């Protein structure tokens, strides 16, 4: 499986966020998207998830399920945790597992893996920001999807949870999955490709055609 973007241009609110962006991610590879604020890291991830339309350019997925669109291949972990405060931890995860197409038992395993098994019957309103993030991460395990799009996944996670997430990512890569991570800091993986967003634009500015 290979995800390729070519000549991508993103315009948001009349402002050009990036232009002529190209990248390739192979199965078993992780691509870390870096750059200063406003460089378009989140926009790129949302674009792959099908939540932002590219102004120009193409996104292609080779060897994917031909019946499904790219956005139906992805796990999108955005800035928001998509949790309902009045539902319990288990109900929250169970709902996303069922909606995104996963099984019930895996949800329990996922809850245990992120250290929330003991809190399963608790309404999500009682969770701290870090615990909410863990619950969002549990989604990645509860449902199998080949492409992971993680937007600042380590923000609000403590060291232990960051280790759990890094282990999850390694396992996903070992299972021939793809990962795109937008991040400011280290994500705990070795040997990953990097895509610098701000650089590319400044390069274009310094070397005019």
């Amino acid at each position, binding site marked *: 499986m290979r995800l390729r973007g070519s000549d991508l241009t993103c315009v948001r609110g009349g402002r050009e966020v990036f232009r002529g962006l190209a990248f390739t991610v192979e199965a078993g590879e992780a691509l870390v998207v870096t750059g200063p604020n406003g460089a378009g890291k989140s926009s790129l991830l949302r674009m792959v998830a099908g939540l932002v339309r590219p102004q120009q350019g193409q996104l292609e997925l080779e060897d994917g399920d031909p019946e499904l669109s790219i956005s139906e291949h992805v796990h999108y972990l955005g800035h928001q945790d998509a949790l309902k*405060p009045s539902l319990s931890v288990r109900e929250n995860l169970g709902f996303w597992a069922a909606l995104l197409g996963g099984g019930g038992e895996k949800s329990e395993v996922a809850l245990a893996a992120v*250290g*929330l098994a*003991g*809190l399963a019957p*608790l*309404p999500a*309103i*009682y*969770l*701290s920001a*870090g*615990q909410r993030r863990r619950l969002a991460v549990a989604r990645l395990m509860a449902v199998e999807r080949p492409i992971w799009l993680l937007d600042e996944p380590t923000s609000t996670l*403590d060291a*232990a*949870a960051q280790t*759990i997430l890094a282990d999850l990512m390694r396992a996903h890569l070992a299972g021939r999955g793809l990962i795109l991570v937008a991040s400011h800091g280290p994500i705990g993986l070795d040997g990953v490709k990097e895509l610098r967003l701000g650089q590319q634009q400044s390069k274009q500015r310094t070397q005019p055609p």
Partner: protein
Amino acid sequence: MSLIDLANPSRFLALTARALPWLAAATVLAFAIGITEVYFAPDDYQQGATVKIMFIHVPAAWLGVFAWIVMSAAALGTLVWRHPLADVAAKAAAPIGAAFTLMCLVTGSLWGRPMWGTYWVWDARLTSVLVLFLMYLGVIALWRTMDDPAQAARAAAVLTLVGAINIPIIKFSVDWWNTLHQPASVLRLGGSTIHPAILVPLIVMAVAFTLLFVTLHVAAMRNEIMRRRVRTLMMLQAGARMGP
């Protein structure tokens, strides 16, 4: 046993655990006497046997007002002294007051049907009770919408006190509106002079209803305290699990 002792939730639970059976027994006893009195009460020369509905209708109306007074007193406790037990008292009183107000409305319309030929007329008293019912529902909705009980208590307290000031104004306006439109043929519920043979059972029933309210209110307050303990424990549990 001073009021300060009562004001501690744990003490309140311990004390009411002992008091509740006695309250319940007193309520049952009062109702037994009241129902007997009602059974032997004479018919009204004008309204016949339907006057028997009055023995639940009027006490229910009284409790509908009384519960709001209790809530207002509790609201003062919440706003002035910030006492958590006052929050609990206010929250527990709202659904009970609403239920008695509903009872007043239902019995009133069942009483009115033989008198007026229709289940509802926009009679000044009944209409005021209907507005009171709506205000109860508003308070309950406010309690249900806010998650933080302390915050909800303050909001509900303000609403309750505003309501307490407004209810007489509403009552006056409705009376005025009603006399403006009132067709002369409509019979008013409840006369100004009540025969003693009817007054005695009415008072006994009012006492029985008040005892019932106190019993239910105390029981509901106990539930409310337990609900807050559950909430506290859930927050503690979430906090205790911060590690992996």
